[in-house]
Protein backbone atom coordinates (compact mmCIF):
# COMPACT_ATOMS: atom_id res chain seq x y z
CA UNK A 1 0.00 0.00 0.00
CA UNK A 2 1.04 3.55 -0.48
CA UNK A 3 3.43 4.56 2.25
CA UNK A 4 3.93 8.16 1.19
CA UNK A 5 1.12 9.55 3.29
CA UNK A 6 2.33 12.19 5.71
CA UNK A 7 0.78 12.28 9.18
CA UNK A 8 -1.39 15.24 8.27
CA UNK A 9 -3.19 13.47 5.49
CA UNK A 10 -5.04 10.24 5.25
CA UNK A 11 -5.43 7.73 2.56
CA UNK A 12 -9.05 7.86 1.48
CA UNK A 13 -9.50 4.10 1.82
CA UNK A 14 -9.47 3.53 5.55
CA UNK A 15 -11.07 0.10 5.37
CA UNK A 16 -8.36 -1.48 3.25
CA UNK A 17 -5.67 -0.07 5.51
CA UNK A 18 -7.49 -1.41 8.54
CA UNK A 19 -7.67 -4.85 6.97
CA UNK A 20 -3.93 -4.70 6.49
CA UNK A 21 -3.48 -4.96 10.25
CA UNK A 22 -3.94 -8.57 11.41
CA UNK A 23 -5.47 -7.85 14.83
CA UNK A 24 -7.87 -5.25 13.50
CA UNK A 25 -8.83 -7.55 10.63
CA UNK A 26 -9.67 -10.35 13.10
CA UNK A 27 -11.74 -7.90 15.17
CA UNK A 28 -13.57 -6.67 12.11
CA UNK A 29 -14.27 -10.22 10.91
CA UNK A 30 -15.68 -11.18 14.32
CA UNK A 31 -17.90 -8.09 14.31
CA UNK A 32 -19.24 -8.93 10.86
CA UNK A 33 -20.10 -12.49 11.98
CA UNK A 34 -21.79 -11.26 15.18
CA UNK A 35 -23.73 -8.56 13.33
CA UNK A 36 -24.87 -11.03 10.66
CA UNK A 37 -25.96 -13.50 13.35
CA UNK A 38 -28.04 -10.78 14.98
CA UNK A 39 -29.59 -9.57 11.74
CA UNK A 40 -30.35 -13.08 10.48
CA UNK A 41 -31.56 -14.38 13.86
CA UNK A 42 -35.08 -15.31 12.66
CA UNK A 43 -33.57 -17.39 9.83
CA UNK A 44 -30.70 -19.03 11.73
CA UNK A 45 -32.47 -19.68 15.02
CA UNK A 46 -33.70 -23.27 15.28
CA UNK A 47 -36.56 -22.40 17.69
CA UNK A 48 -38.73 -19.45 18.63
CA UNK A 49 -37.06 -17.40 21.37
CA UNK A 50 -40.09 -17.59 23.63
CA UNK A 51 -40.96 -21.25 23.04
CA UNK A 52 -41.28 -22.87 26.47
CA UNK A 53 -40.75 -26.55 27.05
CA UNK A 54 -40.92 -27.58 30.66
CA UNK A 55 -40.04 -31.12 29.68
CA UNK A 56 -36.67 -30.13 28.38
CA UNK A 57 -35.63 -27.55 31.00
CA UNK A 58 -31.96 -27.21 31.98
CA UNK A 59 -30.75 -29.59 29.29
CA UNK A 60 -27.00 -29.42 28.73
CA UNK A 61 -25.64 -28.59 25.26
CA UNK A 62 -26.48 -31.30 22.72
CA UNK A 63 -27.03 -31.60 18.99
CA UNK A 64 -30.69 -30.78 19.54
CA UNK A 65 -29.93 -27.74 21.67
CA UNK A 66 -26.47 -26.51 20.70
CA UNK A 67 -25.98 -24.33 23.78
CA UNK A 68 -28.45 -26.22 26.00
CA UNK A 69 -31.74 -24.93 27.42
CA UNK A 70 -32.58 -22.59 30.27
CA UNK A 71 -34.79 -22.92 33.34
CA UNK A 72 -37.94 -22.66 31.23
CA UNK A 73 -36.70 -25.02 28.55
CA UNK A 74 -36.00 -22.24 26.02
CA UNK A 75 -33.17 -22.80 23.56
CA UNK A 76 -30.12 -20.80 24.77
CA UNK A 77 -28.61 -20.52 21.27
CA UNK A 78 -31.84 -19.05 19.89
CA UNK A 79 -32.18 -16.64 22.76
CA UNK A 80 -28.55 -15.58 22.38
CA UNK A 81 -29.11 -14.66 18.74
CA UNK A 82 -32.13 -12.56 19.65
CA UNK A 83 -30.27 -11.11 22.64
CA UNK A 84 -27.50 -10.01 20.26
CA UNK A 85 -30.08 -7.88 18.42
CA UNK A 86 -31.00 -5.99 21.58
CA UNK A 87 -27.50 -5.74 22.99
CA UNK A 88 -25.96 -4.51 19.73
CA UNK A 89 -28.83 -2.11 19.06
CA UNK A 90 -28.56 -0.66 22.52
CA UNK A 91 -24.79 -0.34 22.14
CA UNK A 92 -25.10 1.30 18.74
CA UNK A 93 -27.86 3.64 19.89
CA UNK A 94 -25.69 4.69 22.83
CA UNK A 95 -22.86 5.50 20.40
CA UNK A 96 -25.17 7.62 18.23
CA UNK A 97 -26.82 9.38 21.17
CA UNK A 98 -23.59 10.11 23.03
CA UNK A 99 -21.94 11.25 19.78
CA UNK A 100 -24.68 13.79 19.14
CA UNK A 101 -24.40 15.23 22.66
CA UNK A 102 -20.61 14.96 22.71
CA UNK A 103 -20.15 16.59 19.30
CA UNK A 104 -22.45 19.49 20.11
CA UNK A 105 -20.78 20.09 23.49
CA UNK A 106 -17.26 19.60 22.12
CA UNK A 107 -17.72 21.87 19.10
CA UNK A 108 -19.31 24.55 21.27
CA UNK A 109 -16.57 24.45 23.88
CA UNK A 110 -13.79 24.26 21.32
CA UNK A 111 -14.96 26.84 18.83
CA UNK A 112 -16.56 29.56 20.91
CA UNK A 113 -14.02 30.87 23.40
CA UNK A 114 -16.57 32.36 25.77
CA UNK A 115 -18.50 29.12 26.10
CA UNK A 116 -15.42 27.00 26.68
CA UNK A 117 -15.21 27.40 30.45
CA UNK A 118 -18.88 26.77 31.31
CA UNK A 119 -19.22 23.81 28.94
CA UNK A 120 -15.89 22.28 29.93
CA UNK A 121 -16.68 22.52 33.63
CA UNK A 122 -20.04 20.83 33.02
CA UNK A 123 -18.25 18.04 31.16
CA UNK A 124 -15.70 17.69 33.97
CA UNK A 125 -18.49 17.48 36.53
CA UNK A 126 -20.17 14.72 34.53
CA UNK A 127 -16.92 12.82 34.27
CA UNK A 128 -16.41 12.97 38.02
CA UNK A 129 -19.20 10.40 38.53
CA UNK A 130 -18.31 6.70 38.24
CA UNK A 131 -19.86 5.51 34.97
CA UNK A 132 -22.02 2.69 36.23
CA UNK A 133 -23.25 4.57 39.31
CA UNK A 134 -24.36 7.53 37.22
CA UNK A 135 -26.10 5.14 34.81
CA UNK A 136 -27.89 3.36 37.67
CA UNK A 137 -29.02 6.68 39.12
CA UNK A 138 -30.29 7.90 35.75
CA UNK A 139 -32.14 4.68 34.95
CA UNK A 140 -33.64 4.66 38.44
CA UNK A 141 -34.85 8.20 37.89
CA UNK A 142 -36.11 7.67 34.32
CA UNK A 143 -37.52 4.13 34.61
CA UNK A 144 -36.07 0.82 33.45
CA UNK A 145 -36.85 0.64 29.76
CA UNK A 146 -34.54 0.01 26.81
CA UNK A 147 -34.89 3.63 25.64
CA UNK A 148 -34.01 4.97 29.06
CA UNK A 149 -30.97 2.71 29.28
CA UNK A 150 -29.79 4.22 25.99
CA UNK A 151 -30.44 7.75 27.24
CA UNK A 152 -28.64 7.08 30.52
CA UNK A 153 -25.60 5.48 28.94
CA UNK A 154 -25.55 8.16 26.24
CA UNK A 155 -25.32 10.82 28.93
CA UNK A 156 -22.63 8.82 30.75
CA UNK A 157 -20.38 8.47 27.70
CA UNK A 158 -21.00 11.84 26.03
CA UNK A 159 -18.35 13.71 28.09
CA UNK A 160 -15.52 11.55 26.73
CA UNK A 161 -16.50 12.42 23.20
CA UNK A 162 -16.99 16.04 24.12
CA UNK A 163 -13.41 16.20 25.39
CA UNK A 164 -11.94 14.58 22.31
CA UNK A 165 -13.98 16.79 19.98
CA UNK A 166 -13.10 19.93 21.95
CA UNK A 167 -9.38 19.17 21.86
CA UNK A 168 -9.41 18.64 18.10
CA UNK A 169 -11.62 21.67 17.53
CA UNK A 170 -9.21 23.90 19.44
CA UNK A 171 -6.48 22.91 16.99
CA UNK A 172 -8.55 23.11 13.82
CA UNK A 173 -10.13 26.44 14.74
CA UNK A 174 -6.73 28.11 14.32
CA UNK A 175 -5.84 26.51 10.99
CA UNK A 176 -5.59 28.74 7.93
CA UNK A 177 -8.29 26.88 6.02
CA UNK A 178 -10.80 27.91 8.68
CA UNK A 179 -9.48 31.46 8.38
CA UNK A 180 -9.81 31.24 4.62
CA UNK A 181 -13.45 30.26 4.99
CA UNK A 182 -14.03 33.20 7.32
CA UNK A 183 -12.30 35.49 4.83
CA UNK A 184 -14.80 34.28 2.21
CA UNK A 185 -17.69 35.11 4.52
CA UNK A 186 -18.80 31.49 4.97
CA UNK A 187 -21.40 31.35 7.79
CA UNK A 188 -20.16 29.95 11.10
CA UNK A 189 -22.48 26.88 11.17
CA UNK A 190 -21.18 25.86 7.74
CA UNK A 191 -17.59 26.32 8.90
CA UNK A 192 -18.31 24.17 11.95
CA UNK A 193 -19.68 21.28 9.90
CA UNK A 194 -17.67 21.47 6.69
CA UNK A 195 -14.29 22.40 8.08
CA UNK A 196 -14.21 21.46 11.74
CA UNK A 197 -16.50 18.43 12.13
CA UNK A 198 -15.23 16.79 8.95
CA UNK A 199 -11.71 16.91 10.32
CA UNK A 200 -12.53 15.51 13.75
CA UNK A 201 -14.22 12.38 12.41
CA UNK A 202 -11.12 10.27 13.09
CA UNK A 203 -11.02 10.72 16.87
CA UNK A 204 -14.83 10.40 16.97
CA UNK A 205 -14.61 7.10 15.13
CA UNK A 206 -11.99 5.76 17.54
CA UNK A 207 -13.87 6.91 20.64
CA UNK A 208 -17.14 5.64 19.18
CA UNK A 209 -15.73 2.13 18.88
CA UNK A 210 -14.62 2.11 22.51
CA UNK A 211 -17.95 3.56 23.64
CA UNK A 212 -19.73 0.80 21.71
CA UNK A 213 -17.74 -1.82 23.63
CA UNK A 214 -18.27 -0.11 26.99
CA UNK A 215 -21.97 0.37 26.33
CA UNK A 216 -22.48 -3.34 25.67
CA UNK A 217 -20.70 -4.15 28.93
CA UNK A 218 -22.60 -1.48 30.85
CA UNK A 219 -25.97 -2.56 29.47
CA UNK A 220 -25.19 -6.13 30.54
CA UNK A 221 -24.13 -4.85 33.95
CA UNK A 222 -27.33 -2.81 34.40
CA UNK A 223 -29.51 -5.74 33.28
CA UNK A 224 -27.60 -8.08 35.58
CA UNK A 225 -28.18 -5.72 38.50
CA UNK A 226 -31.85 -5.57 37.62
CA UNK A 227 -31.89 -1.84 36.84
CA UNK A 228 -31.67 -2.30 33.11
CA UNK A 229 -33.88 -3.77 30.46
CA UNK A 230 -36.76 -5.94 31.73
CA UNK A 231 -35.75 -9.61 32.23
CA UNK A 232 -38.35 -10.94 29.73
CA UNK A 233 -36.54 -9.26 26.85
CA UNK A 234 -33.49 -11.32 25.98
CA UNK A 235 -30.26 -9.37 26.15
CA UNK A 236 -26.90 -10.85 27.02
CA UNK A 237 -27.13 -9.13 30.38
CA UNK A 238 -30.61 -10.40 31.29
CA UNK A 239 -29.63 -13.92 30.21
CA UNK A 240 -26.66 -13.88 32.58
CA UNK A 241 -28.85 -12.47 35.36
CA UNK A 242 -31.28 -15.36 34.97
CA UNK A 243 -28.56 -17.95 34.49
CA UNK A 244 -26.77 -16.88 37.66
CA UNK A 245 -29.37 -18.71 39.77
CA UNK A 246 -28.55 -21.99 38.01
CA UNK A 247 -24.82 -21.40 37.85
CA UNK A 248 -23.80 -24.68 39.55
CA UNK A 249 -26.38 -26.94 37.86
CA UNK A 250 -26.55 -25.36 34.40
CA UNK A 251 -23.52 -23.16 33.87
CA UNK A 252 -24.11 -23.00 30.11
CA UNK A 253 -27.07 -20.64 30.56
CA UNK A 254 -24.78 -17.82 31.61
CA UNK A 255 -21.51 -19.03 30.08
CA UNK A 256 -22.54 -18.64 26.45
CA UNK A 257 -23.96 -15.11 26.68
CA UNK A 258 -20.93 -14.23 28.81
CA UNK A 259 -18.65 -15.48 26.07
CA UNK A 260 -20.64 -13.48 23.50
CA UNK A 261 -20.03 -10.31 25.50
CA UNK A 262 -16.32 -11.05 25.86
CA UNK A 263 -15.88 -11.78 22.16
CA UNK A 264 -17.89 -8.76 21.02
CA UNK A 265 -16.13 -6.36 23.35
CA UNK A 266 -12.74 -7.81 22.42
CA UNK A 267 -13.53 -7.46 18.72
CA UNK A 268 -14.58 -3.84 19.18
CA UNK A 269 -11.45 -3.09 21.18
CA UNK A 270 -9.25 -4.65 18.50
CA UNK A 271 -10.91 -2.55 15.80
CA UNK A 272 -10.70 0.53 18.02
CA UNK A 273 -6.99 0.00 18.66
CA UNK A 274 -6.39 -0.53 14.96
CA UNK A 275 -8.26 2.65 14.07
CA UNK A 276 -6.43 4.64 16.70
CA UNK A 277 -3.05 3.45 15.47
CA UNK A 278 -3.99 4.29 11.89
CA UNK A 279 -5.49 7.68 12.58
CA UNK A 280 -3.25 9.02 15.33
CA UNK A 281 -0.16 10.42 13.67
CA UNK A 282 1.79 10.31 16.93
CA UNK A 283 1.63 6.53 16.96
CA UNK A 284 2.73 5.99 13.38
CA UNK A 285 5.32 3.24 13.39
CA UNK A 286 5.20 1.58 10.02
CA UNK A 287 5.71 4.40 7.54
Amino acid at each position, binding site marked *: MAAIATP*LQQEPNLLSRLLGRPTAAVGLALLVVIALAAILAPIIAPYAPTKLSIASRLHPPSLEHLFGTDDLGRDVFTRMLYAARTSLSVGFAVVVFSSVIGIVLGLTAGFFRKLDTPVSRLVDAMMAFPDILLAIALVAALGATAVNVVVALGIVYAPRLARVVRASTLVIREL*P*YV*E*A*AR*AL*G*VPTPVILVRHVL*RNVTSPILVQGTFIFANAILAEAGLSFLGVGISPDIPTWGTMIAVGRQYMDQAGWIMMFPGAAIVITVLALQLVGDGLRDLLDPRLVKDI
Partner: protein
Amino acid sequence: MIADAETNDTTQAAPLLSVQALTKRFPARDGRVVHAVEDVSFEVKRGSTVGLVGESGSGKTTAGRAILRLIEPTSGKALFNGVDLFSLSAREMRAYRQKLQIVFQDPFSSLNPRLRVSAILGEALDARGYLRGKARQDRIAELLALVGLSPDHASRYPHEFSGGQRQRIGIARALAVEPEFIVADEPVSALDVSVQAQVLNLIGDLQKRLGLTLLFIAHDLSVVEYLCDEVVVMYLGRVMERGPSRLVYAAPRHPYTRALLATAPVPDPTRVRVRVPLLGDIPSPIDPPSGCVFRTRCPEAIEACAAVIPPVSPIGGGHHVACIRHDQRND
Protein backbone atom coordinates in the same frame (compact mmCIF):
# COMPACT_ATOMS: atom_id res chain seq x y z
CA MET B 1 0.62 61.64 8.55
CA ILE B 2 -1.25 61.11 5.33
CA ALA B 3 -1.37 64.84 4.86
CA ASP B 4 1.51 65.07 2.45
CA ALA B 5 -0.20 65.57 -0.89
CA GLU B 6 2.65 64.43 -3.01
CA THR B 7 2.07 64.28 -6.70
CA ASN B 8 2.28 60.69 -7.69
CA ASP B 9 2.29 60.11 -11.38
CA THR B 10 1.64 56.34 -11.23
CA THR B 11 -2.12 56.06 -10.65
CA GLN B 12 -5.23 57.92 -9.63
CA ALA B 13 -5.01 60.01 -6.51
CA ALA B 14 -7.42 58.21 -4.16
CA PRO B 15 -5.92 55.07 -2.65
CA LEU B 16 -7.91 51.83 -2.65
CA LEU B 17 -6.92 51.16 0.94
CA SER B 18 -5.82 53.63 3.50
CA VAL B 19 -4.73 52.22 6.84
CA GLN B 20 -4.69 54.85 9.55
CA ALA B 21 -3.15 54.42 13.00
CA LEU B 22 -3.89 50.70 13.06
CA THR B 23 -3.26 49.29 16.53
CA LYS B 24 -3.69 45.74 17.77
CA ARG B 25 -2.97 44.80 21.37
CA PHE B 26 -3.46 41.34 22.77
CA PRO B 27 -4.09 40.69 26.44
CA ALA B 28 -1.27 38.70 28.06
CA ARG B 29 -0.83 37.10 31.46
CA ASP B 30 -1.18 39.20 34.63
CA GLY B 31 -3.05 41.97 32.88
CA ARG B 32 -0.12 42.84 30.67
CA VAL B 33 -0.50 43.76 27.05
CA VAL B 34 1.22 42.55 23.90
CA HIS B 35 1.76 45.52 21.59
CA ALA B 36 1.56 43.59 18.35
CA VAL B 37 0.79 46.52 16.06
CA GLU B 38 1.10 50.16 17.13
CA ASP B 39 0.00 53.18 15.14
CA VAL B 40 0.62 51.76 11.67
CA SER B 41 -0.43 53.90 8.72
CA PHE B 42 0.08 53.40 5.02
CA GLU B 43 -1.78 53.53 1.76
CA VAL B 44 -2.23 51.11 -1.07
CA LYS B 45 -3.00 52.62 -4.45
CA ARG B 46 -5.35 50.80 -6.76
CA GLY B 47 -3.46 48.40 -8.99
CA SER B 48 -0.23 48.64 -7.04
CA THR B 49 1.66 46.22 -4.85
CA VAL B 50 2.82 47.23 -1.41
CA GLY B 51 5.33 45.12 0.47
CA LEU B 52 5.04 44.83 4.24
CA VAL B 53 8.40 43.72 5.55
CA GLY B 54 9.89 42.87 8.90
CA GLU B 55 11.40 40.13 11.02
CA SER B 56 9.21 37.56 12.69
CA GLY B 57 7.51 39.27 15.60
CA SER B 58 7.34 42.60 13.83
CA GLY B 59 3.55 42.48 13.64
CA LYS B 60 3.33 42.37 9.86
CA THR B 61 1.08 39.30 9.76
CA THR B 62 -1.10 40.66 12.55
CA ALA B 63 -1.46 43.92 10.64
CA GLY B 64 -2.50 42.02 7.49
CA ARG B 65 -5.12 39.99 9.34
CA ALA B 66 -6.45 42.97 11.26
CA ILE B 67 -7.06 44.84 8.00
CA LEU B 68 -9.22 41.91 6.83
CA ARG B 69 -10.77 41.71 10.30
CA LEU B 70 -9.74 38.11 10.66
CA ILE B 71 -8.61 39.41 14.02
CA GLU B 72 -10.41 42.41 15.44
CA PRO B 73 -8.20 45.52 15.55
CA THR B 74 -7.94 47.46 18.80
CA SER B 75 -8.16 50.86 17.17
CA GLY B 76 -7.47 52.70 13.96
CA LYS B 77 -9.15 52.89 10.60
CA ALA B 78 -8.94 51.00 7.37
CA LEU B 79 -10.62 53.01 4.65
CA PHE B 80 -11.41 50.77 1.73
CA ASN B 81 -12.82 52.80 -1.15
CA GLY B 82 -13.59 55.38 1.51
CA VAL B 83 -15.51 52.98 3.78
CA ASP B 84 -13.99 52.27 7.18
CA LEU B 85 -13.89 48.47 7.40
CA PHE B 86 -13.43 48.60 11.16
CA SER B 87 -16.72 50.42 11.68
CA LEU B 88 -18.80 47.81 9.84
CA SER B 89 -20.99 45.38 11.76
CA ALA B 90 -20.20 41.69 11.44
CA ARG B 91 -23.07 41.38 8.99
CA GLU B 92 -21.97 44.31 6.84
CA MET B 93 -18.41 43.02 6.92
CA ARG B 94 -19.57 39.69 5.50
CA ALA B 95 -20.73 41.48 2.38
CA TYR B 96 -17.32 43.14 2.09
CA ARG B 97 -15.32 39.99 2.61
CA GLN B 98 -15.21 38.98 -1.03
CA LYS B 99 -13.62 42.25 -1.99
CA LEU B 100 -10.64 41.48 0.22
CA GLN B 101 -8.97 38.11 0.09
CA ILE B 102 -5.93 36.45 1.57
CA VAL B 103 -3.30 33.95 0.43
CA PHE B 104 -1.66 32.08 3.28
CA GLN B 105 1.92 31.21 4.06
CA ASP B 106 1.53 27.50 4.73
CA PRO B 107 0.23 25.69 1.65
CA PHE B 108 -0.47 22.58 3.72
CA SER B 109 -2.75 23.85 6.47
CA SER B 110 -4.49 26.40 4.26
CA LEU B 111 -6.46 23.75 2.36
CA ASN B 112 -8.99 21.50 4.10
CA PRO B 113 -7.55 17.97 3.63
CA ARG B 114 -11.05 16.46 3.43
CA LEU B 115 -12.27 18.52 0.49
CA ARG B 116 -11.56 18.02 -3.18
CA VAL B 117 -10.16 20.97 -5.08
CA SER B 118 -13.56 21.44 -6.74
CA ALA B 119 -15.19 21.77 -3.30
CA ILE B 120 -12.51 24.16 -2.05
CA LEU B 121 -12.97 26.45 -5.04
CA GLY B 122 -16.72 25.79 -5.00
CA GLU B 123 -16.99 27.18 -1.49
CA ALA B 124 -15.46 30.42 -2.71
CA LEU B 125 -17.85 30.47 -5.70
CA ASP B 126 -20.83 29.96 -3.38
CA ALA B 127 -19.74 32.96 -1.36
CA ARG B 128 -20.03 35.06 -4.48
CA GLY B 129 -23.32 33.73 -5.80
CA TYR B 130 -24.83 30.58 -7.15
CA LEU B 131 -23.34 28.82 -10.07
CA ARG B 132 -24.61 25.36 -10.83
CA GLY B 133 -23.82 22.46 -13.12
CA LYS B 134 -21.79 23.22 -16.20
CA ALA B 135 -21.23 26.89 -15.43
CA ARG B 136 -19.77 25.95 -12.08
CA GLN B 137 -17.42 23.37 -13.56
CA ASP B 138 -16.36 25.77 -16.26
CA ARG B 139 -15.58 28.46 -13.73
CA ILE B 140 -13.52 26.02 -11.63
CA ALA B 141 -11.61 24.92 -14.74
CA GLU B 142 -11.07 28.54 -15.67
CA LEU B 143 -9.69 29.34 -12.21
CA LEU B 144 -7.36 26.35 -12.32
CA ALA B 145 -6.13 27.39 -15.75
CA LEU B 146 -5.56 30.91 -14.45
CA VAL B 147 -3.06 29.64 -11.89
CA GLY B 148 -1.42 27.16 -14.24
CA LEU B 149 -3.17 23.96 -13.18
CA SER B 150 -5.18 21.60 -15.32
CA PRO B 151 -8.99 21.24 -15.15
CA ASP B 152 -8.78 17.57 -14.18
CA HIS B 153 -7.00 18.55 -10.98
CA ALA B 154 -10.44 19.58 -9.69
CA SER B 155 -11.36 16.07 -8.59
CA ARG B 156 -8.22 15.57 -6.51
CA TYR B 157 -7.55 16.04 -2.82
CA PRO B 158 -4.97 18.54 -1.52
CA HIS B 159 -2.51 15.85 -0.41
CA GLU B 160 -2.07 14.79 -4.02
CA PHE B 161 -0.33 18.07 -4.81
CA SER B 162 3.10 19.54 -4.18
CA GLY B 163 3.59 22.64 -2.04
CA GLY B 164 3.81 24.91 -5.07
CA GLN B 165 0.67 23.44 -6.61
CA ARG B 166 -1.18 23.80 -3.33
CA GLN B 167 -0.17 27.44 -3.18
CA ARG B 168 -1.60 27.86 -6.68
CA ILE B 169 -4.88 26.37 -5.45
CA GLY B 170 -4.83 28.83 -2.55
CA ILE B 171 -4.35 31.67 -5.02
CA ALA B 172 -7.18 30.35 -7.20
CA ARG B 173 -9.47 30.27 -4.16
CA ALA B 174 -8.66 33.90 -3.39
CA LEU B 175 -9.27 34.89 -7.01
CA ALA B 176 -12.57 32.98 -7.25
CA VAL B 177 -14.53 35.83 -5.69
CA GLU B 178 -12.89 38.41 -7.97
CA PRO B 179 -11.49 40.47 -5.10
CA GLU B 180 -10.23 44.02 -5.46
CA PHE B 181 -7.55 43.57 -2.85
CA ILE B 182 -5.44 40.60 -1.79
CA VAL B 183 -3.24 40.18 1.25
CA ALA B 184 -0.47 37.73 0.39
CA ASP B 185 0.93 36.58 3.72
CA GLU B 186 4.43 35.30 2.97
CA PRO B 187 3.03 33.20 0.12
CA VAL B 188 6.38 31.77 -0.93
CA SER B 189 8.40 31.51 2.25
CA ALA B 190 7.26 27.93 2.90
CA LEU B 191 8.16 26.80 -0.61
CA ASP B 192 11.35 25.39 -2.11
CA VAL B 193 13.56 28.05 -3.62
CA SER B 194 13.06 26.73 -7.14
CA VAL B 195 9.29 26.88 -6.73
CA GLN B 196 9.36 30.30 -5.06
CA ALA B 197 10.30 32.00 -8.30
CA GLN B 198 7.47 30.28 -10.19
CA VAL B 199 4.85 31.32 -7.67
CA LEU B 200 6.24 34.86 -7.49
CA ASN B 201 6.09 35.08 -11.27
CA LEU B 202 2.52 33.81 -11.19
CA ILE B 203 1.53 36.43 -8.63
CA GLY B 204 3.25 39.19 -10.57
CA ASP B 205 1.67 38.02 -13.79
CA LEU B 206 -1.84 37.77 -12.32
CA GLN B 207 -1.44 41.17 -10.77
CA LYS B 208 -0.78 42.72 -14.16
CA ARG B 209 -3.42 40.74 -16.02
CA LEU B 210 -6.23 41.21 -13.51
CA GLY B 211 -5.19 44.63 -12.25
CA LEU B 212 -5.03 43.34 -8.69
CA THR B 213 -4.06 45.41 -5.71
CA LEU B 214 -1.74 43.53 -3.39
CA LEU B 215 -0.39 43.79 0.10
CA PHE B 216 2.58 41.47 0.02
CA ILE B 217 3.83 40.46 3.46
CA ALA B 218 7.39 39.13 3.60
CA HIS B 219 10.40 38.89 5.86
CA ASP B 220 12.78 39.13 2.99
CA LEU B 221 13.41 42.44 1.23
CA SER B 222 14.81 40.84 -1.91
CA VAL B 223 11.53 39.03 -2.62
CA VAL B 224 9.63 42.27 -2.18
CA GLU B 225 11.94 44.30 -4.38
CA TYR B 226 10.97 42.18 -7.33
CA LEU B 227 7.21 42.67 -6.94
CA CYS B 228 6.45 45.82 -5.06
CA ASP B 229 5.87 49.42 -5.99
CA GLU B 230 6.07 50.54 -2.40
CA VAL B 231 7.57 49.10 0.77
CA VAL B 232 6.57 49.42 4.40
CA VAL B 233 9.25 48.31 6.86
CA MET B 234 7.96 47.28 10.27
CA TYR B 235 9.79 46.57 13.48
CA LEU B 236 8.19 45.59 16.79
CA GLY B 237 4.74 46.66 15.64
CA ARG B 238 5.73 50.06 14.29
CA VAL B 239 6.52 51.46 10.88
CA MET B 240 10.23 52.32 10.59
CA GLU B 241 10.33 53.43 6.99
CA ARG B 242 8.04 53.42 4.01
CA GLY B 243 8.04 54.74 0.50
CA PRO B 244 8.43 53.84 -3.15
CA SER B 245 10.61 50.75 -3.57
CA ARG B 246 13.17 52.46 -5.76
CA LEU B 247 13.81 55.11 -3.11
CA VAL B 248 13.88 52.75 -0.17
CA TYR B 249 16.16 50.27 -1.88
CA ALA B 250 18.49 52.84 -3.37
CA ALA B 251 18.70 55.08 -0.33
CA PRO B 252 17.42 53.46 2.85
CA ARG B 253 17.21 56.09 5.53
CA HIS B 254 16.41 54.05 8.59
CA PRO B 255 19.20 52.06 10.28
CA TYR B 256 16.85 49.07 10.52
CA THR B 257 16.16 49.06 6.79
CA ARG B 258 19.90 49.24 6.15
CA ALA B 259 20.49 46.30 8.42
CA LEU B 260 17.78 44.29 6.67
CA LEU B 261 19.18 45.14 3.26
CA ALA B 262 22.67 44.22 4.43
CA THR B 263 21.54 40.71 5.31
CA ALA B 264 19.99 40.10 1.90
CA PRO B 265 22.28 38.01 -0.26
CA VAL B 266 23.86 39.81 -3.19
CA PRO B 267 24.38 37.68 -6.28
CA ASP B 268 27.86 39.06 -6.92
CA PRO B 269 30.78 37.46 -5.10
CA THR B 270 33.19 40.25 -5.94
CA ARG B 271 31.10 42.97 -4.39
CA VAL B 272 32.27 43.81 -0.95
CA ARG B 273 29.47 44.70 1.39
CA VAL B 274 29.67 46.68 4.54
CA ARG B 275 27.69 44.58 6.97
CA VAL B 276 25.80 46.33 9.69
CA PRO B 277 25.17 43.40 11.99
CA LEU B 278 22.05 43.50 14.11
CA LEU B 279 22.95 42.53 17.63
CA GLY B 280 20.67 40.66 19.99
CA ASP B 281 17.09 39.63 19.54
CA ILE B 282 13.91 41.53 18.87
CA PRO B 283 12.67 42.79 22.29
CA SER B 284 9.44 41.55 23.80
CA PRO B 285 6.32 43.29 22.48
CA ILE B 286 4.94 43.04 26.03
CA ASP B 287 7.52 45.52 27.23
CA PRO B 288 8.75 47.48 24.21
CA PRO B 289 11.65 49.94 24.67
CA SER B 290 10.74 53.55 25.38
CA GLY B 291 11.08 56.06 22.59
CA CYS B 292 12.22 54.46 19.37
CA VAL B 293 11.53 50.70 19.65
CA PHE B 294 14.59 49.94 17.55
CA ARG B 295 17.08 51.85 19.71
CA THR B 296 18.17 48.78 21.72
CA ARG B 297 19.65 47.21 18.60
CA CYS B 298 20.42 50.31 16.62
CA PRO B 299 24.10 50.93 15.83
CA GLU B 300 23.46 54.65 15.71
CA ALA B 301 21.29 55.14 18.76
CA ILE B 302 21.90 58.14 20.99
CA GLU B 303 20.40 59.06 24.35
CA ALA B 304 17.65 61.17 22.78
CA CYS B 305 16.27 58.08 21.04
CA ALA B 306 14.89 56.80 24.34
CA ALA B 307 12.96 59.98 24.99
CA VAL B 308 10.35 60.23 22.25
CA ILE B 309 8.70 57.90 19.80
CA PRO B 310 9.93 59.22 16.47
CA PRO B 311 7.05 60.18 14.18
CA VAL B 312 6.89 58.71 10.69
CA SER B 313 7.85 61.87 8.81
CA PRO B 314 7.92 62.59 5.09
CA ILE B 315 11.33 63.24 3.60
CA GLY B 316 10.24 63.80 0.02
CA GLY B 317 9.09 61.72 -2.91
CA GLY B 318 6.63 59.75 -0.78
CA HIS B 319 9.49 58.46 1.30
CA HIS B 320 8.79 58.40 5.07
CA VAL B 321 11.08 57.51 7.90
CA ALA B 322 10.69 57.21 11.67
CA CYS B 323 14.13 58.15 12.92
CA ILE B 324 15.18 61.34 14.68
CA ARG B 325 18.67 61.07 13.20
CA HIS B 326 17.79 60.41 9.58
CA ASP B 327 19.12 63.78 8.46
CA GLN B 328 22.06 63.95 10.85
CA ARG B 329 24.06 61.29 9.15
CA ASN B 330 26.30 61.81 6.25
CA ASP B 331 25.47 58.99 3.90
